[in-house]
């Protein structure tokens, strides 16, 4: 066998997980090689051309705060930015952007190519080489061997990918791309269990055939707020999306064609996401709804393709045309790409650790859709963590594991490795028990120190953050100490805002605590001696107004953290414990929790079982200390 070269770290797949993993690994000083079946679809936004949204926007900010790339590329390729949920509380504000698909690809590819120590190769990886529980490298379909000390698998939907359009089905990784067949078998040979999931995507429609005059446009925010802490200003022209709806006629067409649906005909065995159902699913399961919303999203500045968000389907092509043309504004629509469903293999994630390293094979990491997730942001976050942890592993350091009260990334990974998933896992803010702490506005405060410590976050970004932090601290000190006197002008403004006049002088913080009072009032009556940028103002205001709630969650998290510090020794024998039911033992053996806290989060593990585990772990720990 021909061996071309050895690398420190190999990344298989150049989607959102793979790009972040490769960049992190090489930026942390390791010779890294990124393999992809097709270089032209690097960082492809294969489903909707949008990044962010609820909880996902938080993930993008967190990626940025740790030194990842997704936020910056989104800012450079974004053609519409919207801050969602402004009325529902600062913790659930969320940024969402429409991106130009080809710009996104091009900018990401450029960053990859300019990255020192990062090698990029178009090749199909067929096999992972491992011996004695440790990974050694990979072999491509041309029979070329590459050695590596760590391998990160980020294959997305490509493992035994099977596309469905109506009763037609054919092997594919994505529309128009080859799947990876043998890599799946290689993983099975290495001892991994594989499962099967399904996802789908709607048709793309030619703008020339859309009657935009009939549709309601939805514009982005002006000025747009960027994702990255490093982006100054969004420079791309901004485009609207358009909203339309299905109707009874559409639903009749769908109902009349269910016998030709692979989903209802039993041809698709993979489990699909319930939060992103196909249009046939919506019509069947919510028969009482007389219409379903569709967002027509531009795919870019240079293309006339529009993404019809809301009508993902695997119905036959002729039905797709008929159902699209039954919709207002789309009567003359021409489909440029058909909708399809795709089934693919995944590795149920209870087989990996919090570091994303496989339990069975040292140096082998999994990230992205292969772990059963869905979404670019979830993939990017895992890719980044896999890249970081592979690099830390090679440095001989402890992995970076984010806690559930530190980051959505922590929630994401802990959920995956603790509970596994049997449908494509998407992040929601309701999955985070410390939602008030994991805000969109404070990702830098939560994570930039860590990104800096591991040497991933750029010095420039970290310095800017330190400046922001010291400004915030100064301003908070000022608000806590500077007093304001009630005066006619102030009381008049307070009355206008619908709140009571001030009875006596008080510190500024107390005034700002009133729900009706915004930071602008402070600026008006007691301006700070230095300029306070908008993001710091907003952070100050949130911290002051939510102080009680935030303190309560911080205290709770700190106290629960004691359970996270109680480590369960590696290879701990759960079956030997008295008083645990067989079911609990089985779950514990499957998940192999690393801490008592994690054990308590495994579904079915009772508080009494946790008590017994606590004592057993403590016992073993004390024994190991004395011996």
């Amino acid at each position: 066998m021909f061996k071309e070269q050895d690398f420190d770290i190999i990344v298989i797949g150049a989607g959102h997980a793979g790009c972040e993993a490769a960049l992190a690994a090489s930026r942390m000083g390791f010779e890294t090689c990124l393999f992809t079946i097709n270089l032209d679809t690097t960082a492809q936004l294969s489903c909707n051309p949008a990044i962010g949204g609820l909880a996902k926007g938080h993930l993008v900010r967190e990626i940025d705060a740790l030194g990842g790339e997704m936020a910056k590329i989104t800012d450079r390729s974004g053609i519409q930015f919207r801050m969602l949920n402004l009325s529902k509380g600062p913790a659930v504000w969320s940024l969402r952007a429409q991106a130009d698909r080809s710009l996104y690809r091009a900018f990401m590819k450029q960053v990859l190519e300019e990255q020192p120590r990062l090698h990029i190769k178009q090749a199909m990886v067929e096999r992972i080489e491992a011996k004695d529980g440790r990974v050694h490298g990979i072999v491509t379909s041309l029979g070329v061997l590459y050695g590596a000390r760590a391998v990160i698998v980020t294959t997305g939907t490509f493992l035994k990918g099977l596309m469905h359009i109506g009763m037609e089905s054919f092997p594919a990784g994505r529309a128009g791309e080859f799947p990876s067949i043998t890599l799946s078998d290689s993983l099975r040979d290495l001892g991994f269990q594989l499962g099967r999931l399904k996802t789908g995507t709607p048709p793309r429609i030619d703008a020339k055939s859309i009657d935009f005059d009939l549709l309601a446009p939805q514009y982005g925010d002006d000025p747009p707020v960027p994702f990255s802490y490093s982006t100054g200003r969004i420079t791309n022209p901004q485009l609207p999306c358009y909203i339309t709806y299905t109707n009874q006629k559409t639903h009749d067409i769908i109902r009349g064609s269910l016998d030709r649906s692979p989903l209802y005909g039993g041809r698709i065995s993979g489990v699909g996401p319930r939060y992103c159902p196909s249009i046939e699913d919506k019509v069947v399961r919510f028969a009482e709804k007389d219409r379903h919303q569709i967002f027509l999203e531009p795919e870019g500045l240079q293309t006339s393709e529009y993404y019809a968000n809301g009508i993902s389907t695997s119905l036959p092509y002729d039905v797709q045309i008929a159902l699209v043309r039954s919709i207002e504004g789309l009567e003359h629509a021409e489909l440029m790409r058909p909708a399809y469903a795709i089934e693919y293999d995944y590795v149920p994630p209870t087989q990996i650790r919090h570091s994303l390293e496989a339990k069975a094979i040292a140096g082998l990491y999994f990230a992205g859709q292969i772990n059963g997730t869905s979404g670019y942001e979830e993939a990017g976050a895992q890719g980044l963590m896999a890249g970081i942890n592979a690099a830390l592993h090679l440095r001989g350091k402890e992995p970076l594991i984010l806690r559930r009260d530190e980051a959505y990334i922590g929630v994401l990974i802990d959920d995956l490795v603790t509970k596994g998933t049997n449908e494509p896992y998407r992040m929601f803010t309701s999955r985070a028990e410390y939602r008030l702490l994991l805000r969109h506005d404070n990702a830098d405060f939560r994570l930039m120190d860590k990104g800096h410590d591991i040497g991933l976050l750029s010095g420039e970004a970290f310095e800017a953050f330190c400046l922001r932090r010291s400004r915030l601290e100064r301003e908070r000190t000022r608000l806590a100490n500077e007093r304001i006197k009630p005066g006619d002008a102030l009381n008049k403004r307070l009355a206008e805002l619908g709140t009571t006049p001030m009875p006596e002088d008080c510190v500024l913080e107390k005034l700002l605590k009133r729900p009706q009072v915004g930071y602008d009032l402070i600026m008006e009556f007691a301006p700070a001696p230095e300029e306070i940028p908008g993001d710091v103002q907003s952070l100050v205001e949130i911290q002051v107004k939510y102080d009680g709630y935030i303190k309560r969650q911080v205290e709770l998290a700190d106290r629960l953290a004691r359970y996270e510090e109680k480590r369960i020794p590696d290879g701990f024998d759960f079956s030997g414990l008295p008083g645990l039911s067989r079911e609990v033992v089985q779950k514990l053996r499957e998940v192999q929790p690393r801490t008592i806290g994690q054990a308590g989060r495994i579904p079915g593990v009772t508080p009494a079982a946790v008590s017994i585990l606590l004592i057993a772990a403590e016992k073993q720990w004390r024994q190991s200390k004395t011996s």
Partner: protein
Amino acid sequence: MKHLPDDTIVAISTPPGEGGIGIVRLSGRDAVSIAGRLFDSPRGVRLHSAKSHSIHHGFVIDGNSHQRIDEVLVSVMRAPRTYTREDVVEINCHGGSVPLMRTVNLALAAGARLAEPGEFTRRAFLNGRIDLSQAEAVMDLIRAKTDHAERLALQQLDGRLSVRIHALRDAVLDLCAHVEAYIDFPEDDLPDLVQTELAMSCMRIVRELNALSSRYHEGRLYREGAAAAIVGKPNVGKSSLLNALLDSDRAIVTDMPGTTRDVIEEHLNIRGIPLRIMDTAGIRESHDLAEQEGVRRSLRAIEGADIALAVLDGSRQPDTADRELMERLSGRKLLVVINKADAGIPHFMLGNAGISGSSVQPGSPFQVLLADGSAAQAIAVSAKIGTNIEELKDCIKSCLLPEENRAAGSSRDDLLITNIRHKHALDTAAGALDRAHASIRGAEAQEITALSLREALDALGEIVGIVTTDDILDHIFSQFCIGK
């Protein structure tokens, strides 16, 4: 993991039974401050400034009603030289099971949580107080106690009660799913979230929770029973009354005042309620040391009783001693028993005893007004010949279970809450829903409303099974067509 590793736990640490003394033990970071909130010292001792390993005499008081629950000795032991190596407070109660339970309840209301089976020992082990050789024993203890507690909890969770609490939990889950759906899916085409309906649903559930929770008192009475003290001047026939109720001859009965020098305890069943009844020494000024001690114990028995049967001698007019007694009993739940009514009581002067009422009704219970303005039931009986004893029993029951208690929430069925954990969970849920309601009415951000709803859901989950995020998401996906 629901419970914090160092939160303050409370439990009765003596075996259940009717022995006079029992210990309520608190352990955890707020043990001293929580105990301090229930403790009233006549000498003005403040527990938070008390020295470690010191003992203090005083009373457990209900901060709301200012009622004294029991006379107690409180030991304050600060970490680390304690059983659990945390701050520990032990409250020695004297009045039997009822004051013990009340003390626990007050500790719960003040922020403690009920200890899990074996939890004190578990903490002792984890904090290094118990050595390795005892670890197995601790695990066995947890297992045994958990098995027992689970069996017990299952028995206690009546099938219909479980159905009801499940229904309430599902109602909260529904609210939670609504609010969460609006947070997580702002661009989906969801039906309008009507704030007023949300607020009304919260209040409807709170009312149901409160109604159920109020049944705890009744459930507790049937399960754990109540304590009654028979009090009165010497020789008004207290022991005879006890015997009449018991239909036996346990107490020594003579005509010599002061025969009963100690508190005599008997157990009987009154209309399904296990009643521990204490015959006390006659309360009067005395120079006899033994009798003084008896009087002291009588007063303590009254402190711990759910109801005092104040006995007056119907064959004589009440005097100053009777009036003093009634004054002493002011603020207690009282049933006035006019004994020796066998000779008929045409001109019994209620006013002499400091109470008022139209006139004594020989055949049936009647209402009187006490000096402090509160109303009480009264009944004329003859312990000796057994007149009106059955009516007295009915009277005792209705005093222990006032109509308003029985009426609340019980119009449809007879569900009882007997487990203190269940009651605590219901109260916590109701409190959280109250806050959710307030946040909706105050137009606070939805994420704040969601926070309180989750808390309510978690509390009810403690009774009928924990609700996870996945349950909420399941509910959202089954209720709403999500999928922009």
